[in-house]
């Protein structure tokens, strides 16, 4: 009954669909869930078989040779298959939406989730421009990563389990972006956290990896707490938790810059900060690299970590109404962008570099949505999804290859340490090429995707200087972070692919390019990294450079596309703050700064490349750790983990122990036992009169008789 309704109809709630009739939107969500169910069942079957082997001390099955059992061959088709289905459906709907002017989101409500008292929360999804573009990214990039995973995880005994988790993740991610109210979004919000937990700790037999998963979950829960509080405040203020009702009522209900809206948005920000790994809750993301690399690509680069940005964009009206919170978003973003970039400078683990890079890029997105450039933030989210997924997948291919090479001679080197690599370009040309495309994109070099999105953010931060001096500072920080980005990315590429090979002669013979099902996703993502930015070229840039040539087909497309979603926020900002400056703080327009940025990034890339090519690099075991100065501090990530450990984790455990040993055992149980002891003591005192001698009893009897008689008389 319910499932049928889920797939087919639902009920259209909001009007103003404007002729947009979504095709089976529920099925987009249901397909990954179905994949999870099937793969999960297979995972349990194969898990039990593998458990039998463990019990009987038989080595794990080797699926590379011979016949592959059904539990390992089916997920290959189910996992990416459901994603392909979801992507196709999403694409169809996206194309349908392209043709219509949709001013109100289309809402499909399936059943009443929490109907009680004054609260009414429906299990409903909402299709609008923002959720559709997010779904496109999730299913599209997700599908590519699923395909890549087939090659990457093929040999793992937990193969079906892996796809089960991955499908479940996509389901929750879709719920997150498609939910039509805060609680449904929260289901996805925590659900992706759960999947992230399971996938980070996918190789749970490794204590560090399991720890990393746990850390991610707990830190994320801090953010979830913020989101919960925000929901409570919203409900207390608006009496509903539906997006539509809240955002429609917000400009009239809430006082601009008022305490309530500031509190709401700050709590939302806490949630966003947790999920999107910003200061001070970013610590889980680098550790999250313990998971399989495609997972890092999907969850910890392309989709889940951008949920915070999505949240701010979704609640843009609220943030527009709370300038303090918006400034906080931008400030946190800027600080994170710079801070994470500095750490990335000194990391040797290829995935760690990318992880800090992700944190840094998320900082950029926060800056964008913080200064009111919601479309720019989402734009960077999208391009970042392309090139960062590509970088991670490329890194995955490298690690895969390195692992094989090192494994062939049983060398116990770290397959992820860039100092052990070098010169891989010769062995893995496709990976090399595609990763360079992504690197140039992230570095912000024209005409790659990152140039348009990142520079648009920096531009908006700069022009927001019209509102407050704070943004001028942030603009400076953003520029610095951009420069650092170009530096550490080039450093990574050079150390990995250029220079002499450091794996060792016998090992290097086993280095190889990844198979087709891994390189094809790389290629597609590379294309997207190169051209993806063209959907939102600023009109002025397009006209000044290429207007006459028609090379760039679209201008400001994303801005216009997202306008219905952000229009009320834009209206609030426009009426309260006025217009953006339209010049950078130190002068110069769009075109000038675009040119400056490209040239600057290009210069940094070239200089860095020359520098690292000239530097001799030692393999990790000969190199050791940097032991003094800023290098050591950066290598150790500013000692933030240690700091948190000292001021939060240890005190908390200490207090917990104290509560248990002192309050619980001594105070409360002590009191309870004392009550018991007192009654025992009273009993003991009474027993003193029980001498066991008849005279005593007789005497007491007589005394009592006297007392009774006396009582009668007096």
């Amino acid at each position, binding site marked *: 009954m*319910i499932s049928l309704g889920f797939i087919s109809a639902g009920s259209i709630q909001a009007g103003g669909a404007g002729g947009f009739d979504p095709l089976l939107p529920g099925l987009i969500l249901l397909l990954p869930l179905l994949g999870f169910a099937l793969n999960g069942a297979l*995972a*349990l079957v194969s*898990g*039990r078989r*593998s*458990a039998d082997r*463990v*019990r009987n001390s038989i080595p794990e099955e080797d699926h590379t040779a011979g016949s592959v059992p059904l539990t390992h061959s089916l997920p290959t088709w189910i996992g990416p298959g459901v994603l392909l289905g979801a992507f196709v459906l999403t694409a169809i709907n996206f194309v349908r939406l392209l043709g219509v002017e949709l001013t109100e989101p289309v809402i499909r409500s399936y*059943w*009443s*989730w*929490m*109907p*009680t*008292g*004054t*609260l009414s929360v429906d*299990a409903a999804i909402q299709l609008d421009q923002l959720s559709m573009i997010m779904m496109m990214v999730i299913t599209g990039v997700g599908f590519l990563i699923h395909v890549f995973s087939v090659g990457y995880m093929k040999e793992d005994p937990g193969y079906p389990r892996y796809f089960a988790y991955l499908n479940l993740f996509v389901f929750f991610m879709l719920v997150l972006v498609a939910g039509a109210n805060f*609680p449904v979004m*929260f*289901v996805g*919000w*925590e*659900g992706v956290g*759960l999947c992230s*937990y399971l996938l980070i*700790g996918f190789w*749970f*037999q*490794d*204590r560090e990896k*399991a720890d990393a*998963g*746990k850390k991610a*979950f*707990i830190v994320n*829960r*801090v953010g*979830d*707490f913020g989101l*919960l*509080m925000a*929901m*409570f*405040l919203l*409900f*207390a203020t608006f009496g509903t938790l539906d997006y539509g009702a809240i955002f429609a009522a917000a400009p009239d209900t809430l006082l601009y810059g008022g305490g309530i809206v500031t509190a709401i948005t700050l709590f939302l920000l806490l949630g966003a900060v947790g999920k999107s790994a910003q200061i001070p809750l970013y610590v889980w993301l680098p550790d999250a690299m313990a998971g399989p690399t495609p997972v890092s690509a999907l969850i910890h680069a392309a989709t889940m970590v951008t949920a915070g940005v999505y949240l701010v964009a979704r609640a843009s009206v609220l943030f527009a109404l709370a300038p303090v919170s918006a400034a906080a978003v931008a400030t946190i973003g800027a600080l994170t962008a710079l801070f994470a970039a500095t750490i990335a400078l000194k990391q040797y683990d290829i995935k760690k570099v990318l992880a800090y890079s992700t944190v840094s890029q998320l900082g950029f997105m926060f800056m964008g949505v913080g200064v009111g450039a919601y479309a720019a933030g989402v734009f960077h989210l999208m391009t970042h999804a392309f090139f960062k997924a590509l970088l991670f997948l490329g890194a995955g291919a490298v690690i895969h290859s390195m692992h094989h090479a090192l494994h062939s001679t049983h060398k116990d080197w770290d397959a992820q340490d860039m100092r052990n690599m070098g010169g891989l370009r010769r062995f893995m040309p496709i990976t090399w090429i595609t990763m360079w495309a992504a690197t140039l994109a992230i570095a912000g070099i024209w005409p790659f995707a990152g140039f348009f999105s990142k520079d648009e953010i920096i531009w908006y931060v700069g022009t927001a200087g019209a509102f407050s001096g704070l943004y001028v500072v942030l603009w400076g920080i953003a520029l610095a972070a951009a420069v650092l980005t170009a530096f550490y990315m080039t450093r990574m590429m050079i150390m990995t692919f250029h220079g002499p090979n450091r794996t060792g002669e016998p090992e290097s013979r086993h280095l190889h390019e990844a198979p087709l099902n891994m390189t094809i996703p790389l290629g597609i993502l590379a294309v997207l990294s190169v051209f993806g930015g063209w959907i939102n070229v600023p009109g002025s840039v397009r006209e000044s450079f290429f207007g006459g040539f028609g090379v760039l087909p679209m201008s400001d497309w994303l801005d216009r596309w997202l306008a219905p979603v952000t229009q009320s926020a834009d209206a609030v900002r426009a009426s309260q703050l006025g217009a953006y400056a339209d010049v950078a703080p130190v002068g110069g327009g769009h075109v000038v700064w675009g040119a400056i940025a490209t040239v600057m990034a290009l210069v940094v890339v070239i200089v860095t490349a020359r520098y690292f090519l000239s530097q001799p690099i030692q393999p990790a075991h000969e190199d050791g750790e940097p032991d003094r100065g800023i290098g050591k501090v950066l290598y150790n990530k500013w000692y933030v983990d240690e700091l948190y450990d000292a001021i939060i984790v240890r005190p*908390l*455990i200490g*207090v*917990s*122990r104290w*509560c*248990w040993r002192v*309050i*619980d055992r001594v105070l*409360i*149980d002590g009191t*309870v036992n004392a009550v018991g002891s007192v009654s025992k003591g009273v009993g003991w005192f009474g027993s003193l009169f029980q001498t066991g001698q008849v005279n005593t009893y007789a005497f007491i009897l007589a005394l009592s008789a006297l007392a009774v008689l006396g009582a009668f008389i007096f």
Partner: protein
Amino acid sequence: MTGLLDAMGYADWILHALIWLPLVGMAVVLLSPEERAKHVAFGWALGLFVLSLGLWWVFDPDGPLFQLTSMTEWIGAWGVTYALGMDGISLFMILLTTFTMPVAILGSFNYIRERQRAFYSLMLLLQVGIVGVFASMDLFLFYVFFELTLVPMYFIVGIWGGERRIYAAVKFFLYTALGSLLMLVGILYLYWQSNLAFGFASFHYFDLLGTPLTLTEQLWLFAAFALAFAIKVPLFPFHTWLPDAHVEAPTPGSVVLAAVLLKLGAYGFLRFVLPFFPEASAHPTVVLVMITLGVIGIIYAAWVAAVQPDAKKLVAYTSVAHMGFVVIGIFALTTNGLQGGLIVMISHGISTGALFLILGMLYERRHTREINDFGGIAKVAPLLATALVITAMASIGVPGTSGFVGEFLALLGTFERYPMLAFLAATGVIFAAYYMLPMVQTILFNPLDREENRTMEDLSGREIAVLSPLVGLMLLIGVLPGPILERMEPGVQAIIEWVDEGASGALLDAARDRGTEPGLGELPVRSELSELGTSALGTSTYDGTRRIHLFFRDEG
């Protein structure tokens, strides 16, 4: 379905059957051979569960507040009646009980090896008491059943428990008995006051409702009742009996204790404390104290749980934290809060029951409850690991599971009135992860470095049968709590209105309409009872009309 049930006259006998059939079952178990006792008990409990399912259809969400009511004179001179009935709240508590029992019994097949007949008959006796509590509409009857639950539980812990079972059993018994004795005093005082005010003696719920009491009296009675229920819940700082009892109790004992027995306390608050003492319950200081204690319980228990080396003790402390959510939900006195508290009760019953069952299964395999003795179990027992992960997630309230719905609503309801306290309580969401994940990790994940763990068996068919309904319900309630919420709503609304608006609303109507309700016609008329009462107690101002005193407002 409804037609079939009507044809059977289901509504007329079901509550009586659910209370007394376990007693018959007890006799049957005692008469069956020792090695068949568990099967007989399981079959009986399962049969009762199937029987009780009809309640779902019989209960009409749009019907009167209390349904399936019946009343027979018991001790006429004192106005004690054998009166049963249920509203939406009782409905789910009864269903939870009948559901938990067969699961707990099935889960104890391997755990209980000695004196099986005695054990299973005590389990069924426990069911008599619990269902009786939830179905009683007479305070005397309620008290009898309330105390009856102590006895079997005392023996279950004391005979089949762990090493310190005697200490734990005595502590459990004395702690709870102390509270309920004070409550007995309160009940008697209330009875006398009602007798003085209305002119007839009765322990019936409706007759005690609206007994005129001064605020001071209400506060004292509130304290007497609340202590009994706070110990049962248990509310910080009356919780220390719980970890001991849980650790020492055998698995099925723990399951029933966590799943149902703790609910008696919360149910008592809802059914009796709030309606009987509305002014005291809404008194700002009282509410503040209760909610603060609940919040302290949530945070404090989470902290203490996090550092427990013993898995069962850890889960026991999590019970305290969960029940903290129930208490804040109840005393927020909002519909959302109460509904949330009730869902937490149901969810906690299922998820914590499942946790205890899983820990029991681990104990059967390894004979240890130390968390650190495990590690890497997920590798050798994937099904057990899956069940534990889902259960743990439900326990810490991940959305999509039953735990979230409850905690969310409870916090939301609390936030409407006490934002700061709700803020503090919501940090429990973080601390829940802080206690649960390390346990899950240490047991399931990490290297499989112990030989004993490496040869551990995964779930057997019986164990799958035990856990799968629990896991299924966790997810089902998480996704589709609507039908439950709808059925509980009238009862919850009635309590809120009664407390909030000064003894009025649906509860008053229910009490007023009692005489005309179906099923009551052939039962002793109030006036007869009142004559008995007046002759015994010698006060006669009762004029034979049905009434509830309104002490907040004058009616005429």
